[in-house]
């Protein structure tokens, strides 16, 4: 189990070796990063297989958790830890410069650490590392608009980090510990007051910057419209999900109280309304997809705010679906980034790309039998089963947003497949982008075929994630007070 540390350490080490290797020999530098990530994927896969249904804590450096810092391994953590090297490999910036390969490896290391960490201290450090890597990657594009977008994103994100640090400070003043398992024991007493809620609100807002949460998501269209499509896919697909994972861990382990979930629900509903309406108004494809990502993350927030196992199941379903669909859409939109009107008939000249785009768009709207339908269905049925006007309101907002989503995506599809647009102004799709998107489509269709076992697996993950006794016993092996 201790080998899991390598999944964080190796990409980090590789990030610093890549520039030197690339100077030695460019092909070697080019293959070094993907090779490391493939090794990490294999390593994590082996650990996940060996662990099975069990959980494990890894004390870094051999210092036991209340004193030292720890990784917490369970199926939820390993699922996202596996998603990191897989997604980074799929969206690897092959065409970039050594600096970008380096930063992408830092991003992978930080994201893996974020998924595995069982300690607020480490969560903060990995979150910052992820943030710094993403600033660098966005600013690697030399266009002035990208530089301005990177600066505006940096200011918002750094302010969010400071707020999250403030939340951590509040947690520490109330409990005197940063270990999540120990916090789970202390929270019902120590964090029950308004200060505990304030700490959660600060952490939610701070980490919510990366998770595209409602009031702090203004960076989304600016960055995604100027970033290369692979980076946009990585940020929208992977990084936002890891930020959500951190928030959900905090919600489940530390802040189990109705006010906290309500806060998430309200932010989620506002995010859905804001994102989908802005996407409807968007005039070019990359900004339409960016705003739609804000709306989808709103649904993820609403889904995770459902209590207990249902919430984790619904949230995972929506989050994993978006993790797969949005990067593929960004890849396909790479050569269709002009005004929507200019896309007339584009799918007729690129039938495969058009068909894939239609498949992903339909799944995003939630047309049965595609997995997007099932994800939204689980969320909505969970919402309707809850008492209270807020949950019903959220369900109504999701249904309305689905209509809006259908309206703008079908409009885009009509333009893509419609007649007209004789001059072939757009470059054809690269084989790499198309291949990656096809692989994602294969996974999506596999999700349709193996929906039953997939649901069973997600149920198992959700059951384990809400089981706090096991969580505490895993990380704090000493008998409880």
């Amino acid at each position, binding site marked *: 189990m201790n080998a899991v540390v390598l999944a964080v350490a190796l990409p980090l080490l590789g990030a610093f070796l890549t520039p030197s290797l690339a100077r030695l020999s460019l092909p070697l530098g080019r293959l070094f990063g993907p090779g490391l990530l493939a090794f990490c994927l294999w390593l994590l896969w082996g650990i996940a297989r060996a662990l099975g249904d069990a959980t494990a804590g890894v004390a870094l450096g051999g210092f036991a958790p209340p004193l030292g810092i720890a990784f917490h391994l369970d199926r939820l953590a390993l699922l996202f830890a596996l998603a990191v090297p897989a997604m980074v490999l799929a969206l690897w910036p092959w065409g970039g410069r050594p600096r970008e390969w380096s930063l992408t490896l830092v991003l992978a290391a930080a994201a893996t650490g974020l998924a595995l960490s069982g300690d607020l*201290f480490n969560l*903060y*450090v990995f979150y*910052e590392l992820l*943030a*710094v890597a993403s*600033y*660098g990657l966005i*600013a690697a594009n030399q*266009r*002035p*608009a990208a*530089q*301005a*977008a*990177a*600066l*505006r994103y*940096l*200011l918002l994100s*750094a*302010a969010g*980090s*400071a*707020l999250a*640090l*403030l939340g*951590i*400070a*509040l947690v*520490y*003043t109330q409990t*005197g510990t*940063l270990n999540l398992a120990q916090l789970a024991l202390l929270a019902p007493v120590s964090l029950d007051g308004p200060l505990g809620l304030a700490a959660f609100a600060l952490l939610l807002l701070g980490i919510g910057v990366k998770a595209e949460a409602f009031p702090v998501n203004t960076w989304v269209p*600016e960055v995604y*419209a*100027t970033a290369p499509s692979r980076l946009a896919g990585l940020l929208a697909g992977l990084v936002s999900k890891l930020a959500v994972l951190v928030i959900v861990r905090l919600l489940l382990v530390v802040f189990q109280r109705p006010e906290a979930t309500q806060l998430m629900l309200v932010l989620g509903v506002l995010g859905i309304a804001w994102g989908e309406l802005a996407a409807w108004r968007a*005039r*070019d494809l*990359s*900004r339409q997809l960016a705003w739609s990502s804000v709306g989808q993350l709103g649904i993820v927030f609403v889904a995770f705010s459902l209590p207990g196992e249902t919430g984790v199941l619904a949230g995972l379903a929506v989050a994993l679906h978006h993790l797969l669909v949005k990067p593929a859409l960004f890849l396909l939109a790479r050569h269709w*980034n*002009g*005004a929507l009107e*200019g896309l007339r008939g584009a799918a007729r000249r690129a039938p495969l790309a058009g068909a894939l785009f239609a498949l992903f768009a339909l799944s995003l709207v939630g047309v049965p039998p595609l997995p997007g339908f099932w994800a939204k269905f689980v969320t909505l049925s969970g919402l309707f089963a809850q008492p209270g006007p807020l949950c019903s309101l959220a369900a109504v907002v999701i249904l309305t947003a689905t209509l809006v989503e259908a309206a703008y995506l079908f409009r885009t599809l009509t333009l893509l497949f419609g007649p007209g647009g004789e001059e072939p102004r757009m470059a054809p799709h690269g084989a790499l982008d198309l291949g990656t998107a096809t692989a994602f489509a294969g996974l999506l269709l596999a999700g349709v075929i193996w929906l039953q076992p997939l649901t069973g697996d997600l149920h198992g993950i959700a059951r384990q994630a809400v089981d706090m006794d096991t969580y505490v016993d895993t990380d704090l092996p000493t008998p409880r007070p």
Partner: protein
Amino acid sequence: MTPPPIEFLLYGGALALVALGLAGLVMARHLFRSILALGILEAGANLLLVLAGYRAGGVAPILTPGTLGQPMVDPVPQALVLTAIVIGVGVQALALALALRVHQAYGTLDVAEVRGRMEADTDAAAGLEPETSRDLPAVERPS
């Protein structure tokens, strides 16, 4: 009238720094001021975290023959703050470098102007006309 305990002053000061930084970030019209406000906000958060581990009369948490057995301040927040300070310095340097680049490209660091230029650039790259509305004031409508 007795003076308030020193803790009130320190906590109040830290929270005031946070409030000042947030207000600055929200209200600044100039990007350089935003970067300064960010520094103030981070200083406030760091100060609050150090205070969380403060112990009256404690010494630095380093084990030497002289400090053995004396009360010590909590080392965990100090380690966290040290990390946060290092990250903060790096991020601010990066922000300044980006601000320089933006200034070279646009000749201004005014928040609204930079945003307008950025959106115009993005629109132009996508081949879009500048966004207009017939509800705009007549002077801002393109003729």
